[in-house]
């Protein structure tokens, strides 16, 4: 950049004390560009040349939030005004999305880049044209980023924002398939599991409203999701994500049934949980048979913990609690890092067992 069109601007140097800034060996261009930018910022000059200068400055340092902020102000000022509400011309939006894409490369960790896309799209979604198509194109962009970094938090948040903002059934349903494809390529991708929960619950596709107006899956859907979680866990029982998903799905049903106080509902959910407990026991057994000599890896803390969580739901069932207590003893040995946590849970279950025994004795 030769700064020729800025020759009427008095640059504001950085306040560096006695040493002259120009003697800097590192990058005179960097300093010069930011000196001009400070001058334009101070004068609040929102012009085409100011926009070009932000382009240059952002290429030098894409994390500077004030430059992005100033760039958007320029874009708004340079666009045609509509009913006095701030807007950015569609063409400029498309161009700037492209600019942000190129600047970020294949792995934009920098938060400002994501936020800029979102700010531009907020304007874009208000304009005429096939908005769904704009959204799909943006989802493709995010997919490209996730191909490179499948757990990029900003990218997943950006997907959620697009889908939620447009709120179209088509996008919600396709997101479940998308999450599935990501689980298949890496079952340990927790972001993909979270996305599945997000699409099912927030999209209100298969959920019903419970009495406190929060979205809860229907029993039938919950059954499917529990099977899905176990399918994921079976691929790799040491993977934390499907176990948390499974317990999340089943606990949601249990809490909802308990709140509703309908005996029939509670019985149905109890059946569903028992069925899953049975499946986990089988999985545990077959895993132990596969690895008979390696006792420490014969069980996964995630599997055992999920089993304990479900067994513990039945606070007055002696057999369930006894089984849970034994599992906690195993966890204390095999997962010493969290020994105090398991110990605390074991104490709690022991207390429950003692009170059951007392009741039995009193009854006798």
């Amino acid at each position, binding site marked *: 950049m030769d700064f020729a069109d800025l020759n009427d601007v008095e640059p*504001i140097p*950085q*306040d*560096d*004390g*006695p*040493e002259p*800034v120009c*003697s*800097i*060996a*590192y*990058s005179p261009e960097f*300093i010069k560009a930011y*000196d001009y930018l400070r001058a334009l*910022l*101070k004068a609040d000059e929102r012009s085409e040349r100011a926009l070009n200068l932000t382009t240059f400055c952002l290429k030098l*340092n894409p*994390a*500077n*939030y*004030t430059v992005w902020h100033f760039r*958007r102000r320029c874009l708004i000022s340079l666009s045609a005004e509509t009913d006095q509400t701030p807007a950015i011309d569609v063409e400029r939006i498309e161009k700037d999305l492209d600019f942000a894409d190129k600047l970020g490369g294949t792995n934009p960790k920098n938060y400002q880049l994501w*936020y800029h896309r979102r*700010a531009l799209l907020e304007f874009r979604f208000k304009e005429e044209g096939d908005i769904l198509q704009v959204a799909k194109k943006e989802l493709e962009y995010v997919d490209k980023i996730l191909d490179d970094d499948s*757990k990029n*938090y900003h990218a997943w*948040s950006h997907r*959620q*924002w697009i889908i*939620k903002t447009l709120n179209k059934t088509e996008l919600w349903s396709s997101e479940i398939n998308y999450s599935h494809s990501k689980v298949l390529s890496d079952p340990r*991708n*927790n*972001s993909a599991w*979270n996305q599945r*929960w*997000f699409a099912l619950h*927030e999209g209100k596709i298969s959920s019903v409203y419970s009495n406190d107006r929060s979205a809860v899956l229907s029993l039938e859907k919950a059954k499917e999701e529990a099977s899905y979680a176990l399918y994921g866990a079976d691929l790799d029982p040491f993977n*934390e*994500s499907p176990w*948390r998903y499974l317990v*999340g*799905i089943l*606990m*949601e049903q249990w*809490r909802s049934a308990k709140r509703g106080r309908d005996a029939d509902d509670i019985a149905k959910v109890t059946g569903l949980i028992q069925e899953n407990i049975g499946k986990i026991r089988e999985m545990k057994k077959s895993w132990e048979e596969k690895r008979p000599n390696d006792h420490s*890896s014969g069980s996964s803390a995630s599997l055992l*913990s999920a089993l304990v969580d479900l067994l513990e739901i039945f606070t007055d069932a002696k057999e369930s609690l006894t089984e849970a207590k034994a599992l906690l003893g195993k966890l*204390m*040995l*095999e*997962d*010493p*890092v*969290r*020994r*105090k*946590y398991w110990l*605390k849970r074991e104490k*709690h279950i022991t207390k429950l067992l003692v009170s059951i025994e007392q009741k039995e004795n009193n009854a006798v």
Partner: protein
Amino acid sequence: MSAFSSTDAETGAIGPFHDALHARYVVELGHRLDSPTSYEGAVTEHLRMSGVYWSLGALSLLRDADEVDASMGLRGGVDGGGEENGGGGRRMRRAIVDWVFDCRDPRSGGFGGNCSGAAFGVGTPGTATTTPCPHHGHLLYTLSALQILAMANALDDERLDKDAVARFVSGLQNPDGSFCGDEWGEVDTRFTYCALSCLALLGRLPIPRNDGEEEDDAIVDVRGAARYVMSCRNFDGGFGCVPGAESHAGQVFCCIGALSIAHSLHLLNEGRDGCDADLLAWWLAERQCDSGGLNGRPEKQADVCYSWWILSALSIVGRVSWINTSRLGQFILNCQDDEDGGIADRPQDMPDVYHTFFGLCGLSLIGHLEKIGNREGRTYREVDPVFALPTDVVRRLGLRAQVISYSNGDVEDRLKMHSILDGTKASLK
């Protein structure tokens, strides 16, 4: 499953701690960033406010307030080094407090990440060559600015227009209780924490009344803020940046810290799905990797900064003992640079001030700094897990948040200044 036996975990002695190197690393960092040839200085220019807060925070855990003031130049100018740049003689650096006030954005009322260009505060005292030209006000930097002023005991400085800052913060709250970070309207639970912490530091936070009555004249809706935080809780017990977003340990701190400042931790055991403090704490405990370090999400690498984000949240909910603190302490110590000082994100990496501060915070929260101090005849200041400031500063300012006691009803000494929620009842299990 871990290869370590449970006895190893209990007996580990604490390894070497490079106190003097870390102190020097932090003090000299300021000079290095100021150097006009510093690339690091140029690209971190816009967030210098947070960098200064991390530096001061780190040094404050190692040295007493007077020493920090003298070596960092909090209230008065300080020798800014400069010989290595070949300039004529050494330079004086302006007082940090003066520089903070230059970073106030008069348009918004908040503080920006820096002012008048790259260097923070370099120049002859009282002879700034340019008019301050701050970055635009943002909640992140407004909180860092107030935290710096708190450590410098300068919150009553006449240049601080508390009403204007409080108006800036309250203007960023949305009808659903959430907060934006700046006028551009990005919403994130990080900003809820920043907003509530700022107002607490300014002495302007309306604490919700227990009688259920709403205050009409409150500048922010604290209950709404807490409700929004709860809407970001996930099925795994953790919290994300907005409703539906994946649980992330950094966001967990912000959410638990916000609930703590809002005296609303009881909400953890009420909500729609009944996920309670135990489920959250277990999710946090599961973040401990075989290396002893903590990660921020499942299947991610351990990183020293999570020693802060996770331990602070576990401290607030009274469940630090659920992780193996001696193994974590060793992990943090393994991340020290034993030649030049500073702490890195993981062993063998380059240190930086962010990880240095949060590594020291982690060592403080698990009691390692205290043990090291006993071993070496020093007294270290402690960090407060809610406000991320030394506990003596929190006490001096009379800041009061809420914490949950251990399951036996006891509470760590450093937390006794806060309101205590009975942990014996905090569990639904």
